[in-house]
């Protein structure tokens, strides 16, 4: 969707922006604590009764997990309640040939084959595709595998187990779910690396505001050309 307008457009509404930053923070905490759950810190000196390091790390993981999961549910709600751009994370216009052409164009732009980037009010189509694959499905994957593991600690027949317990046999056994949950972290982290790099790059190189848009909600354009 190319735009000609000069004036700022209000794209990302407050709840969406709030979600973005809460989500980014919770993922940071989850990845850090998750890593240390799998590869714990060096042994603590003193009596066991005087230490609770693993306990705190796991507690932080589970707290951030609830923030992450409830946030995701709220984000789904906002896809219905919010504006058009709030739906971009969940609905890809895959039947729209123009959208695919734009994905192609953006790919060429990142491969240095296009000289000038186009303007987009919402996410650019390539970004949208990546977010859908990595964040939307990645979050669903992490929530299902994560809560299945959590259900194991909460015990059989609790609501966690009733809702998510079936995930364990689906993967084989608990150990497999651990491994896949762990791989899921790297899946999401790979997105985060690209995402942050591209956000900053586009902020400098594109013809529109990027990082400030996710803070203020307004998209500003740097020139008047089409």
């Amino acid at each position, binding site marked *: 969707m190319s735009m000609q307008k000069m004036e700022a457009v209000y794209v990302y509404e407050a709840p969406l922006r709030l979600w973005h930053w809460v989500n980014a923070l919770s993922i940071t905490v989850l990845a850090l604590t998750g890593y240390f759950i*799998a*590869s*714990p*810190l*060096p*042994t*603590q000196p003193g009596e*066991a*009764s*005087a*230490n*609770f*390091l*693993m*306990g705190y*790390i796991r507690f932080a993981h589970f707290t951030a997990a609830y923030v992450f999961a409830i946030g995701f549910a709220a984000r789904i709600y906002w896809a219905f309640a919010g504006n058009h751009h709030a739906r971009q994370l969940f609905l890809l216009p895959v039947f729209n040939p123009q959208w695919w052409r734009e994905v192609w164009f953006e790919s060429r732009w*990142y491969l*240095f084959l296009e*000289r000038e980037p186009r303007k987009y009010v919402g996410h650019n189509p390539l970004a949208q595709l990546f977010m859908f694959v990595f964040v939307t499905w990645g979050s669903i994957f992490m929530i299902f595998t994560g809560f299945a593991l959590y259900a*194991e*600690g909460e*015990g*059989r027949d609790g609501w966690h187990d009733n809702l998510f*317990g*079936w995930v*364990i*046999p689906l993967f*084989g*056994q*608990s*150990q*497999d779910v*651990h*491994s*896949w949950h*762990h*791989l899921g*972290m*790297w*899946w999401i*982290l*790979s997105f985060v*690396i*690209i995402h942050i*790099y591209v956000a900053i*790059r586009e902020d*400098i*190189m594109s013809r529109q505001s990027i990082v400030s848009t996710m803070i203020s909600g307004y998209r500003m354009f740097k020139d008047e050309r089409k």
Partner: protein
Amino acid sequence: MSGIETFYDVMRRQGISRRSFLKFCSLTAAALGLEPAYAGKIAQAMETRPRTPVLWLHGLECTCCSESFIRSAHPLAKDVVLSMISLDYDDTIMTAAGHQAEAILDEITTKYKGNYILAVEGNPPLNQDGMSCIIGGKPFVEQLKRVAKDCKAIISWGSCASWGCVQAARPNPTQATPVHKVILDKPIIKVPGCPPIAEVMTAVITYMLTFDRIPELDRQGRPKMFYGQRIHDKCYRRPHFDAGQFVEEWDDEGARKGYCLYKVGCKGPTTYNACSTTRWNGGVSFPIQSGHGCIGCSEDGFWDKGSFYDRLTTVRPFGIEGNADQIGGTVAGVVGAAAAAHAAVSAIKRARHRNEEKSEEK
């Protein structure tokens, strides 16, 4: 009780006193976690209910399940249960052999049609028409199917019958297949472990015989009363886990102090079994207590999950082999390097673009 014996009749015939019988009933009630009043109910059931025969078949296996079973901590329980079973069929411990033994199978399956329990130790290999395990001149899978046809329920003893175990480990040359993938139309109770704990085995079988129903099972078909929790949930080293105190090397201070074995590959956090509660050999010890991590022997495919001594174990997502950090870390590293390279090229392009623009302006 016209002609058909009750459990009690059989026990008395085996020379078990009434006093021993009652002791057995209360022990069983305790082992099953039932209230004391159940001792009486068990006694009553055993005195009045006709004996349910148990046929115990052996497929591709190492007999460690039987070895565990006959070492049940409560000799009383073992004697009693064994006397119920050995009367019928169990080719490794019965006196009858050859045609005589096979005749018992035929007799029980017809006389008690739909009313006997089939216990399977080991599993049938399916490759080469089942040739890798021959019983009485025929592939084991045929015997299994024949006896399973008219049974009331099946107990899958051990990890072989439940999941496949070592003979089914990659690449599984004989295509050893767990019982539930061969017999699809009978209730199956899985009692995994390599071997399962003796007390768990006797308790499961006693429950089924006395109450004439199968114990409550979890999603994977294991009795909840023994497989409802992980080793980790009841491990006596758990406080060290929560404190973050680990054995880092086998000969370090932590090992001497009995710290948690998580970092040296303990599979307690992913293994459902009763070892940390009932323990082994009459409650003497269990692997973690003797200083070695749990190897996860009661879990599906435990032979194929990489080293017993690594916390992060091998995964094979798309033919690649490595642990989650090796695979994921490599991917993230490549992505990071690509982003850095891309940034460098972008900067150069931009600088050149600027220069061009400047020269155009001039």
